[in-house]
Every structure is written in structure tokens, then in C-alpha cells.
């Protein structure tokens, strides 16, 4: 009997041990990346337009292009990325434990996450809001008509709480059906288990476009019930790496603002007399040096992925399959919210 007790204790200890097995602090993230020659980037398991692998295993999407830009600024080669597909539950732990260098996975910045996860929000890459999708044949025109209805949602996201807040504030008594996996939540909606599906409006567009048999049979309701600033996160405690990710994003925005594109970047690098362009492309001052990067860090990124506007157009913009309008994601001087700190 005593032996049995000891055995039980050993099992308990071993199971707790697996949680304690976080690796010790890895030192400078950038050093690690340079040593292994790869940026390890956490992405979505499959959200077309943001982060999804095609049948050949090639990752594409807005979040993926951010990873590629980071690889270009740090290693000079946008292909040197290892993608780690993560679901909503895994993403923060993967970043905290050092499994990934950066989490670029349509993740909302919130106070709780910023203050309690040991992570840092870098810069917003997509301003979103939570919406609802319903079948056209339900004849529902507004989220206010969802009283007492079932709504499919993915667990462990800000979405779940927003839904509750909205349901409470509007007195709707919505019944959530919560799924761990994105695919399961989408599938439950399409089989008709729920009358509506809720997630960020961009996610709705992606799902409608890629998963629905006939996209025309589903409409996205006009109400947006929350603010969802999405962007990459990094671990706390490595300010240099935090700055690199943040400034890579700002650089892509600056490139758009000053008309630097994938096609003209080489020509501008050689000929541009504009001091701002020269600074961004590293032909006058060495802006990369302060970040611990090469002089042409931003030129490499724009050459690989294009500027922010090009990334947006290619992955989610009006001409892409998702067909999302630029809206608030336009530059500050074109009526949007995208405002980069100056590269100088």
C-alpha cells in the first residue's frame, strides 16, 4: 500500500513537471535567429488571406507576409521562416515558452493580454471589428434579430467575451456554442447547428469566401460589435527584438507613404534624391544599425513583400478573393488609421 502511494506521488510530480519544463531564458532573440538562420513565426492554422498553407505547403497571407518581412529585415531573406501553425489556445504559451520568436496570428491587443501574459504588443497590422454572418435564407438583417439564438464561436478568443457583452447589453440572451477549433466552429455553422457565426469581420469574409459552398448564400450583418486591433506579439524582456518587429511594420507603412514599392525599390535605392526615401532604404544614414540590422534592412523587406499597401492588396484587398475594402486600414493621410512613427 505504501508503495502505491509513493507511485501516485511520482505520477503527480511527473505530470506537474511537464508544465515546469519551460526552457530557461534564451538570451537575445535576434542572436538565436541569426544562429539558426531562421525566424520561427507562429501563424494561424488556416485563415485564408491572413495565414494559411496551400496544397503545396506554401504559406500565404497578410500575417505570413509580416513574418517574411521580418525575416528579410533580420536575415536578408524572406524565405528563411519556419511557420508554426497555432490555434487560439496554443498561441500565447508557444510564444511565452520560446517555441516561436514572434506571434503573427490575427491576435487582438487588449489590456489583460498586454499586462498579464508576459508579452508585448508590437504594432497594429489590421484594424478589425467583430461581426456576425448568417445564411441569407434566414432573412435576418440585423444582429438585433438574434434574440435567443444559437451562435457558433471559437473558444478562447476575445470574440467569445465580446459576444457575451453584446448579448447582455442588447438584452439578446444569445446562446453560444463554443468550439476549440476554428474549422469545427465554421463547420457547425455551415451544417446549420447555429443560426449565426461570429468572429472578426475579416475572418468572416475569409470563411465565407473559402469555406462556404456558395458565398452568396451568406451575408455579414452590418453591426460591428467590437474593436479588434490585430498585430504581432513578442515576448517581454527583449526590447531589441520588440523594436525590430515594431519597426519592420512601421517601415512597411512608411514605404507605402513614400511610394516605395516592390517594383521600384531597386531603382529608388539607386537614384532617389528624397531624403526620407534615402533614410528608409539606408542609402544615406544607416537606420538599420540602431536596430542591430544591416543598412538595407528595409529595402530587403520591401523587395520581398512589397510595402504595407501591396501586402494588403495582395492578400485581403478588394481585388483579392476576400475582397475587403481598405477602410480604416488605409494610411492616416488617406482617411485611415495606419500611422507609422517616422523612420529617422
Amino acid at each position, binding site marked *: 500500500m505504501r*508503495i502505491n502511494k509513493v507511485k501516485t506521488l511520482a505520477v503527480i510530480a511527473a505530470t506537474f513537471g511537464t508544465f*515546469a519544463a519551460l526552457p530557461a531564458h534564451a538570451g537575445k532573440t535576434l542572436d538565436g535567429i541569426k544562429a539558426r538562420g531562421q525566424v520561427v513565426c507562429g501563424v494561424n492554422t488556416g485563415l485564408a488571406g491572413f495565414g494559411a498553407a496551400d496544397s503545396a505547403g506554401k504559406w500565404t497571407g497578410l500575417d505570413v507576409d509580416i513574418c517574411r518581412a521580418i525575416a528579410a529585415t533580420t536575415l536578408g531573406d524572406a524565405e528563411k521562416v519556419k511557420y508554426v501553425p497555432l490555434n487560439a489556445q496554443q498561441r*500565447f504559451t508557444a510564444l511565452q515558452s520560446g517555441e516561436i520568436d514572434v506571434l503573427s496570428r490575427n491576435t487582438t491587443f487588449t489590456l*489583460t*493580454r498586454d499586462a*498579464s501574459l508576459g508579452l508585448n504588443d508590437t504594432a497594429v497590422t489590421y484594424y478589425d471589428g467583430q461581426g456576425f454572418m448568417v445564411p441569407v435564407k434566414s432573412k435576418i438583417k440585423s444582429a438585433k434579430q438574434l434574440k435567443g439564438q444559437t451562435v457558433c464561436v471559437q*473558444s478562447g478568443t476575445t470574440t467569445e467575451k465580446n459576444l457575451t457583452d453584446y448579448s447582455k447589453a442588447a438584452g439578446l440572451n444569445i446562446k453560444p456554442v463554443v*468550439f476549440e477549433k476554428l474549422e469545427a466552429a465554421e463547420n457547425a455553422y455551415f451544417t446549420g447547428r447555429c443560426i449565426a457565426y461570429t468572429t472578426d469581420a475579416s475572418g468572416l469574409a475569409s470563411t465565407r469566401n473559402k469555406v462556404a459552398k456558395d458565398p452568396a448564400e451568406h451575408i455579414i450583418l452590418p453591426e460591428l460589435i467590437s474593436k479588434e486591433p490585430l498585430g504581432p506579439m513578442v515576448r517581454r524582456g527583449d526590447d531589441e527584438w520588440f523594436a525590430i518587429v515594431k519597426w519592420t511594420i512601421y517601415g512597411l507603412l512608411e514605404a507605402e507613404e513614400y511610394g516605395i514599392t516592390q517594383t521600384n525599390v531597386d531603382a529608388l535605392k539607386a537614384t532617389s534624391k528624397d531624403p526620407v526615401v534615402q533614410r528608409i532604404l539606408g542609402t544615406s544614414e544607416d537606420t538599420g544599425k540602431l536596430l542591430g540590422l544591416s543598412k538595407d534592412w528595409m529595402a530587403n523587406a520591401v523587395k520581398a513583400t512589397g510595402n504595407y499597401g501591396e501586402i494588403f492588396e495582395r492578400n485581403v484587398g478588394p481585388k483579392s478573393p476576400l475582397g475587403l475594402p481598405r477602410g480604416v486600414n488605409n494610411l492616416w493621410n488617406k482617411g485611415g488609421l495606419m500611422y507609422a512613427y517616422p523612420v529617422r
Partner: protein
Amino acid sequence: MNPQTPPKKNSWSWRSQAFRGIVYQLIAAVAIAAITWFLIHNTLVNMQARGIKSGFDFLSQAAGFDIGESLYPFDSAQPYWEAFLIGVTNTLRVAVLGIILATLLGTILGVGRFSRNALVRGLCLSYVEFFRNIPVLLQLLMWYVILTEVLPASSEAWTLGPFFLSKGGLNFPIPVWSTGQLWAAYGLLPGVLFGWAYRRRAVRKFETTGKPGSMVLMPLVIMLFASLAGWALGGAPTEFNRPIKGDFAIENGGALTPEFLAVLMGLTLYTASFIAEVVRGGISSVARGQGEAASALGLNRNQEMRLVMLPQALRVIIPPLTNQYLNLTKNSSLAVAIGYPDVVSIANTALNQTGRAVECISLVMLVYLATSLGTSLLMNWYNNRAAIKER
């Protein structure tokens, strides 16, 4: 000749086996305590170094999310620990019901393997082989897909009297609570007493005179009648909360969601195949002569199984049966895949809202540890009761 004197036993000597045993166990216990302490300490230090907040204080904060189904009402303003409690009750609900149903079905299937009818035998065998050899997660998904894909939308629900079956689940009428139901419960009390007394008398009569009386049916009738009498005394309430078809969903009445039904069906059908094997093994273990002896006494096939074979098989069946109960309870954690809000699903949500990964996972582990130890305690007690008592 010198008589060999046995070595002097000193309980504090290294030569004493008992003493050595205690020392070894002490060393093991200290080593484990040290490792545990190191792991916990290391985790806490690392989490602090990374700025990750830790502690169980979040349990008293408002949860802020709704739960799709629960045994009692839950509001998002209630704290996390109450949300966890809802998850635990949801897990237990599916586990307890699943254990009861799987035991019934498994026993029938196990006994069916000894049927003289080749068709019955074959059907039981194919059931076991089919359900035992497909991973339970796939079975859960399969039932969920069947329930949500094949069933009609709520607006075109299949109707049988006051029952509705649709993608929204099974909707049924529930009695409106009134004093009448309470009276029915009051009536049940003397009913149980009388039924029990009747059964005792019937058993005694059988033992003394050999005339078999009704030992199951009549006591049940007495209980039912007493309960009905109580219900009539309480004013015979017949008011039901009937489900009605709304525009998009079926409203009012009671409801079993497709998530719950899929988990229950999947776990029951899967575990029943294992229980059937356990029962079969138990019955095979009873000596063949026992069955022959029973026939020689003039017992029919049914009595032979019920009175001679099964009671003896029970001793072999209970320990592996306990394992199946534990497995069923633990497998219910797969419910998260099809959206049933069990304790794992709610812990997942809490984990993501608060970022307290270590805490939430520990809580879930604690819940399963407690339910498993509880189940095994109960079954061990029953096993002791059923074991052969040497007198």
C-alpha cells in the same frame, strides 16, 4: 550439536527488512518532494522572470463569458470558479449517464455473446468489433456530424407528439413545477417502504415454501401507485412546459443539445463494447460445471445466467469494469472537439481569457484526479462486498 540460534532481531538494525523498507521509502518520499518543489519553484521563478502573472486569484473575478448549456443558470457576471463548477457538473452529467447506459448495454451485449441464437451471437460480436476498434474521438465527431447534418433545421423539426428532434437537439415537455410534484415525491417515500417490505416477504416466502412470488414487478407497482396517489392528493397538476416552434429555434420546454447527445452516444456506445468484453470474460471464467449444475437443478437458461453465472462472474468483472468507468470519464474530455462545454472546454476559455495556463491545467487535472479516485474508491468498496468471503 549446537542448536542454531536465530539472529537477534533488532528493529533498528540495517539487517532488519522492515527497517530497510522504511528507510528506502523515506528516501524516495524526500526525493520526490524535492523534485516536486524544484519543478514548482522553477516554474514560478521562470514565470515571474517573464512577467507572466500567476496565482489562483483570478477565480474570484467575473468570468465574462456565457456557457451554452448548464444544469443551473449561469450568468457571465458570475466568477470563474462558478464557471468551472458548471464545467464539472457538465462533465459529471455526461459521465454518470454514460456509465449507467454503457453498463446496461455492455452487460446485454456481453451476455448476448453466450446466446444459443447464432444471429444474436454474431450481432453482439460485430458490434463489439466495430465500436471497439474505431477511435472514440472519431466516433464523437461521427455522431455530431450525423446529428447536425442529417437532422432537419429547427423550423422543419421532426415532430412526435410534444417531442421535437432537429439540429437544435431533442426538445421535450417538462412538467411545470408545483406542489403536486412535491406530493408525488412524498408519496414515493411510503411507496419505497411498502415495496421493500413486500419484497422481503416474497423472498422469505420463497425461501420457506419454495413458491416464487413477484419480487420485482409488485414492489415497482406499489411504488408507482403510492407516487400517483401523492400526485393526486397534491391536486393532480397536469401543466407542462411544452416546446413550441419559434421562427428559428424551438423555444420553451426542456432540451438536450446535439453536443450533449453526441458525447453521450459516442461515449456510451464506445465504452459498451469494452464492457461487453469484460462481461464476456467474466462469464467465461466461471467454471463450466456451474452452468451444468444449474441446469441439473432445473433452472432455465435465464435463471442459470441471472442466479448462478453472473453473481460469480461479478467478482472477475468489477476490477476491469472500474477501468472502463475511469476511461469513460476521462474520455469525456474529448467533448471539447464538438463544442460541449465540459470542464476542459471551460478551462480552455478561462485559460485564454486570463493567460493562467498552469493554473487552469492544474485545476482540470485535479478535477479528473478527484473523479477518478472517487470512482475507484466506490468500485473498490463494491468489489470488496462482492468478493468471496472465506468464513
